[in-house]
């Protein structure tokens, strides 16, 4: 020891005098802390900091004391100073991260908690608070990983981390997992505050599952770059090519009057009204009653939806539409789910000119959803066939006109549903549909000859449309104001390219709405 010590050379000055004094005060402060006298400890540490403003230890100690005294801001200031003086200071980083989480500065807390997490003795607590921070940042997958890590390192955290697993699952709307976690909390720590709160969660889930009513109402302001009633320019002026603002109201309710085990019957009604600012001829109203019978197997749900729509253009009857909609949804554990459906519709228009569109519309399709980490992050791809069967009950001329709108279509789609930070749910989708029309469509411009559809098959090409659609949507609940309140912003773009000039058009809609859901 002596040789080793004395042979070394003096390289630089020793710590300043104040550092020794500040350490002495720090030691006395620790005694005061452990005696429960935090005020005395703070007074000693105030003196220590005054004597040596570069002593990271006493800043750390005072930070913890101030935090324990409820001075969150003071604690954060001191702990930040401690880490500024000593950048690698894991125990201070842990306390700073914890204090920042407590102050709801979650993103700021992360790097400090990550530093502390690398130290084995601090790993459990750092992982736990990292999980809390990520939960509050809506990064549910990361939060779950860190809760599991905390539990693995320190089994005494099992109760608390199970509770948070339940909260994460609830926030992800995975209610089955949430129920399992909350029930485990109740079993493991029945007298704890978390068990009590877990009971609250369970009651909410159970009560909501048994709820027989739900309702919603949405008001929105939209801008439509090309106001129209459909994509076919079947009546002069029905595709305006003009932009206009409109207000939209959409409201409805659902009632489940009957449940028999896994079977249920639901009835619903929905009302829709658009009010154009300028082009008021295009104000549209819809009344939509529907009924659905559903049966749930373990991994498969089947259903039959029947729906009726009655549209009015301003105050005049415009369209009646009946829909039959059988469907099957297959859940694949750990992958997602697959939906198969067949949408059959019969449309009967009430105004002259539009009746050429009367007939049956058939859309069978399949859509596969892939869960990317959790149920709120989905990638989906879909394929749908479309085939129309027009009403051919009229005169030969009417029959010919109706046949001009018969088509066969194939649609491909891909989309993403993603839980973003700040509780925002983002949706994005892209669709492409190719429509091949019948021979009768040859007579559309640029070949508008009267008999082109039958007598002169070489008069022109059949109509072919390529329809591209882009959909973007962001939705966020506003629990800060009301648990039932949501805001929604969306964009919808349609780009229809046809070899018949009357049918080529673009349409873009921007929408911002507020929704209330019960």
């Amino acid at each position, binding site marked *: 020891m002596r040789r080793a010590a004395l042979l070394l050379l003096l390289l630089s000055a020793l710590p300043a005098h104040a550092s020794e004094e500040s350490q002495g005060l720090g030691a006395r402060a620790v005694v005061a802390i452990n005696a429960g006298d935090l005020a005395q400890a703070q007074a000693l540490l105030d003196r220590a900091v005054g004597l040596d403003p570069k002593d990271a230890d006493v800043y750390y100690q005072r930070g913890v004391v101030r*935090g324990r005294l409820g001075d969150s801001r003071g604690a954060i200031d001191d702990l930040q100073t401690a880490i500024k003086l000593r950048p690698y200071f894991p125990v201070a980083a842990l306390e700073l991260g914890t204090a920042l989480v407590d102050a709801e500065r979650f993103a700021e807390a992360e790097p400090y908690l990550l530093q502390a997490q690398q130290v084995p003795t601090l790993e459990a607590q750092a992982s736990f608070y990292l999980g809390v921070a990520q939960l509050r940042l809506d990064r549910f997958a990361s939060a779950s990983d860190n809760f599991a890590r905390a539990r693995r390192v320190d089994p005494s955290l099992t109760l608390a981390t199970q509770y948070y697993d339940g909260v994460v699952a609830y926030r992800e709307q995975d209610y089955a997992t949430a129920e399992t976690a909350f029930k485990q909390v109740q079993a493991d720590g029945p007298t704890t505050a978390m068990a009590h709160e877990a009971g609250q969660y369970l009651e909410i889930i159970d009560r909501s599952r048994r709820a027989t009513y739900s309702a919603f109402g949405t008001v929105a302001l939209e801008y439509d770059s090309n106001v129209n009633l459909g994509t076919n320019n079947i009546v002069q002026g029905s595709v305006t090519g003009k932009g206009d603002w409109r207000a939209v109201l959409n409201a409805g309710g659902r009632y489940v009057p009957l449940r028999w085990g896994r079977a249920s019957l639901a009835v619903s009604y929905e009302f829709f009204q658009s009010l154009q600012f300028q082009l008021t001829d295009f104000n549209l109203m819809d009344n939509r009653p529907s009924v659905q019978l559903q049966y749930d197997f373990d991994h498969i749900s089947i259903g039959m939806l029947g729906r009726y729509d009655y549209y009015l253009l301003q105050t005049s009857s415009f369209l009646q539409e009946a829909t039959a909609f059988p469907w099957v949804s297959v859940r694949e554990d750990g992958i997602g789910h697959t939906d198969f459906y067949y949408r059959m519709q019969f449309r009967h228009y009430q105004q002259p000119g539009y009746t050429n569109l009367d007939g049956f519309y058939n859309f069978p399709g399949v*859509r596969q959803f892939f869960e990317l980490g959790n149920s709120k992050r989905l990638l989906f791809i879909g394929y749908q066939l479309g085939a129309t069967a027009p009403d051919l009950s009229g005169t030969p001329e009417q029959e010919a006109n109706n046949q001009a709108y018969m088509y066969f279509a194939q649609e491909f789609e891909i989309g993403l549903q993603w839980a973003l930070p700040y509780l925002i749910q983002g949706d994005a989708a892209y669709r492409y549909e190719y429509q091949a029309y019948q021979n009768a469509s040859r007579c559309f411009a640029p070949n508008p000859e009267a008999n082109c559809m039958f007598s002169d098959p070489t008069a022109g090409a059949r109509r072919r449309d390529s329809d591209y659609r882009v*959909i973007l949507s962001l939705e966020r609940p506003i629990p800060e104001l009301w648990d039932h309140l949501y805001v929604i912003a969306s964009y919808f773009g349609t780009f229809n390219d046809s070899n018949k000039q009357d049918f080529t058009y673009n349409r873009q809609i921007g929408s911002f709405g507020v929704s209330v859901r019960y």
Partner: protein
Amino acid sequence: MTRFSLFALVACLGLATAAAAQDAGTVASLHGTAEIGHDGTFVAAAVGAGVQVGDTLRTGDGQMRVVFRDDSVVDLTEHSTLVVDKVVFDPAGGHYNSLVKLLAGKARALVNEVYGTTPGAAYEVETPTAVAGVRGTSFWILYDPARDATDVIGIQGRIQVRSLAERLNNTVYVTAAQGTTVVRGMSPTAPEPVSIDYLRYEDDALQPLALGNVGSLAAATGVHSGNTVPAPDRAPSAAGLAGQLGRDELRNTGDVAGQPLDVVGGDRGRLGIPGK
């Protein structure tokens, strides 16, 4: 409260105060295991435990920091033994006289400045071969039984070091970053410089003691134990979920082929009449 119970409470408080007054010091920090011996019986040391005159402090694989009544601080490193021989701390009478004996191992002492400013005050650390007299300063002192020698290294201030052999009257003064060695029966060596790196290395080894157990902000909240639920993580209002569940049911299964995106206005608001 009856008169008797009030008397009993006062009596108990008085006894507790008297017991606390007898403590020469308090265990401020622990890192690993250490023991306190009193009247020949050793018990595990704990943060906040009192240390009395005559007690023996012993570390195994751990370290221990004791803050004495006179505000002096002694850190004992691993495998060390120290006896608290005398602690006289009488600010009213101006009497300050302390003696601790390092029987084995290594200690770091930070001594109250009062010893340097009060005439007649003495703070001494004695080993089997040497005595370090201190007046408001800090230093390392190590006694190695194998060599039967004591090393004293100054951290700050001026330390008087002499041999325990009474026939010798040689005294040396060690200042900051100087060291001396006292082998049994011999005079202290002339002070020599010591590397700052060495001192930093030793100080770093005591870092856990320096931080001490100041508690944890997390533990203070009770979230770990499940006894507190922060407001953001509590169960929300019940009413919102029913609509959400109903809506999910419709969205996920009731209209599988409908618009997967819940955009305001639905198809009708965007497309006019759905389909073609």
